[in-house]
């Protein structure tokens, strides 16, 4: 047993209202740069729907993830090492930028600078690839809230697996939101696909990162990831991906997407797992057995043997303690959380609590009591369509675990209603789903009212190392890397690295002038970090000669 710690996330889909705040704040923090205009490290897709990039779940087309060979081992779906090198000059599985969408901006300038005309000026969309006028025809959320789904829904790879009549019924029956980030898999196929060895899994917390110094732009990770969560920066020619906001995690802060989630549906914590058994678990024969195999390699942090092995594996004491308090471990124990597409055999570590609300909506809509346990259980049994769809997403098609999770959520709903309305703790409801009343209340606490410290249990990187964190050879702190802008002598990506913490003059200047708007002398407020007084942002000073103390010259003269 080799115990390793993994930083992971669970999202409670019942609470997601599809507001995209996570996507927007993530974009502001990480991909608000040219070259990654089309990139959303965090995106929220409406399901059923085609997702982003379009139809990414169709692995017959994209060749992402692993498959099991006849000999019982796993290999990369799009071919092993030799096959990868043979296709290095042109990767046949690489999504084009139009599979995501063509990024654009508007010439907002025209709204105020257009010459006097009879018509009201409009801001036309301009392609960020060519700078020319374009017709916007797709984006990351084109089918948001099922908009236009009558036309596009047939392209949903999950629906394609289900029967025709199901498809027709879908739109009125069922809809939910699926926020997605990088899965930070235990068995990452992007890492395995990288010819340069630039992608790696951090030994301390399992976060999967791209070393920007070592990436050579071979593009195999982009096609190797079945979730399509590694992106190609078309300006710098390097791969970029969700970093699990590791600079924040290291100091004990939640990721930006979690921090800003208005539904408070995200949980962060570490789990301990047995690294020696990952390959074995990823190669079990049956796709539907993968969920259990993954649950099996995740270790109980309260087990003395595990604690012993964790200490032997140099996992710090406070990390073991954090693993014991981890909401992730608790939600996995309740078996209400499920991984996204375990059949890709990457052992993803961002899990989801499937949404019960579509079921409740149907029950309530039919005039029945949406919080009565028996009605809900019956509805879960009867509503095979949403259950089947959820099973295709979370359990490789096996409805039993989805069923069990939804029943527990339904039981919790009824049990808590009993407490609130009738002042009665009905143990039978809890027992029907194999839990005790106390357990249900505990789960309710975690799902409904858990505070910040309970939702995000993040052991910080160690204080004795903290001085180095700021200045570590961060894989992102480059010209053109996240958070920076500007160009070096060999195109947009070149030049030496600049320390993260040092706000030097050039960096500030770059940031204030990068992505400059079409009219000079104006500042892109999205890029402005609040430092300095860029031209055109403030009205001319009326203060006259201001001294560093802020006092006026003549004040002193008087005093």
């Amino acid at each position, binding site marked *: 047993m080799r115990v390793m710690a993994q930083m992971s996330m669970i999202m409670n889909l019942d609470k997601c209202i599809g507001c995209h705040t996570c996507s927007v704040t993530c974009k502001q923090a990480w991909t608000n740069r040219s070259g990654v205009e089309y990139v959303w490290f965090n995106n929220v897709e409406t399901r059923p729907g085609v997702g982003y990039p379009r139809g990414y779940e169709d692995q017959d087309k994209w060749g992402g993830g692993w498959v099991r060979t006849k000999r019982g081992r796993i290999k990369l779906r799009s071919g092993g090492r030799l096959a990868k*090198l043979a296709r290095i000059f*042109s990767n046949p599985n690489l999504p084009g930028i139009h599979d995501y969408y063509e990024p654009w901006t508007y010439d907002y300038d025209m709204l105020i600078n257009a010459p006097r005309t009879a018509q009201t000026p409009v801001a036309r969309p301009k392609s960020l690839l060519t700078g020319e006028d374009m017709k916007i025809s797709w984006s990351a959320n084109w089918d948001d809230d099922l908009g236009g789904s009558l036309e596009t829904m047939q392209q949903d790879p999950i629906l394609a697996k289900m029967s025709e009549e199901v498809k027709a019924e879908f739109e009125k029956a069922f809809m939910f939101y699926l926020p997605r980030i990088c899965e930070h898999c235990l068995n990452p196929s992007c890492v395995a696909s990288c010819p340069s060895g630039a992608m790696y*899994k951090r030994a301390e917390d399992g976060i999967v990162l791209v*070393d920007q110094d070592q990436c*050579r732009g071979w593009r195999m990770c982009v096609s190797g990831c079945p979730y399509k969560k590694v992106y190609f920066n078309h300006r710098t020619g390097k791969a970029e991906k969700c970093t699990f906001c590791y600079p924040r995690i290291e100091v004990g802060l939640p990721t930006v997407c979690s921090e800003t989630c208005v539904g408070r549906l995200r949980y962060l914590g570490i789990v301990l797992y047995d690294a020696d058994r990952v390959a074995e678990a990823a190669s079990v024969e049956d796709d539907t057995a993968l969920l259990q195999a993954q649950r099996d390699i995740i270790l109980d942090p309260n087990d003395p043997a595990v604690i012993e092995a964790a200490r032997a594996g140099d996992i710090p004491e406070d990390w073991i303690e954090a693993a014991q308090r981890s909401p992730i471990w608790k939600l996995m124990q309740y078996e209400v959380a499920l991984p996204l597409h375990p059949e890709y055999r990457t052992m993803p570590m961002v899990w989801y609590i499937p949404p019960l609300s579509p079921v409740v909506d149907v029950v309530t809509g039919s005039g029945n009591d949406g919080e009565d346990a028996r009605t809900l259980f019956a509805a879960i049994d009867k509503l095979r369509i949403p259950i089947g769809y959820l099973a295709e997403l979370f359990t490789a098609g096996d409805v039993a675990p989805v069923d069990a999770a939804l029943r527990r959520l339904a039981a919790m709903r009824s049990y808590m209603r009993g407490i609130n309305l009738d002042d009665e703790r009905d143990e039978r409801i809890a027992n029907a789903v194999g839990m005790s009343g106390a357990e249900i209340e505990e789960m309710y606490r975690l799902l409904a009212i858990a505070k910040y410290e309970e939702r995000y249990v993040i052991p910080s990187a160690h204080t004795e*190392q903290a001085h180095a964190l700021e*200045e570590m*050879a961060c894989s992102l702190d480059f010209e053109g890397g996240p958070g920076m802008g500007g160009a070096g002598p060999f195109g947009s990506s070149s030049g030496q690295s600049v320390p993260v913490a040092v706000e030097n003059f050039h960096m500030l200047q770059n940031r204030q002038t990068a992505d400059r708007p079409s009219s000079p002398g104006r500042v892109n407020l999205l890029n402005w970090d609040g430092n300095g007084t860029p031209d055109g942002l403030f009205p001319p000073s009326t203060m006259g000669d201001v001294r560093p103390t802020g006092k006026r010259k003549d004040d002193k003269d008087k005093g």
Partner: protein
Amino acid sequence: MTALQIVLWVAVPYAAIAVFIVGHIWRYRYDKFGWTTRSSQTYENRLLRWGSPMFHIGILMVIAGHVVGLLIPREWLYAIGITEGIYHLGATGLGSFAAALTLAGLAILVYRRRTVGPVFLATTVMDKVMYVFLAVTLGFGTLATVFYQLLGPGFHYRETISPWIRSILIFQPDVALMAEVPLLFQLHVLSAFALFALWPFTRLVHVFSAPVGYLFRPYIVYRSRDAVRGARKPRRGWDPVQQPNPQRLHGL
């Protein structure tokens, strides 16, 4: 041996080689982040799907041919039974095929670069300069092969250019060997050295990143945060805090 000859066949090659070597070291130290293929496949794949493999496989064949023709003395080849006739047939036949493949691939790629909007906008000045020198080198080489080897009587570069190259590499340059070489070959050699001098400052550096190590490493790469941190020497004033070593006190 005129001064011009010495400049052309001693000074220029050594200067180019020096720039090539020092340039790569400098670029690697200064600009690891810019060391990339700068692939434009995400913009356009229909043309690239053909052009890129054609060009790359062709140029790899061309390089292999040059290694055999220039660096390996013909006596060695005779020794393993490759006679002049077999060599000529192989070199001219395979060489012409490789040249055709490379040039066709390059033509597709240049056409693509010029006509596909996003690709054209992503082209740097260095890219354009590099394309000129690459195309000129390939062009002279192909012309020389066509005129002398295919249509003409055949020029025995293994008696002149090859020993000269080897004389350069062992630091005993023999200028006289290049004096009588036909102009097309001379131009090919000179443009190639110009390309070498340019090499470290272009995207061609990706040649030295050919991911051969991928064949031998385990699939999943783990790295420690500490190891990453140590990859760069801490700047002055950011040294890790360390406990004073009491041994040093006792040593006083």
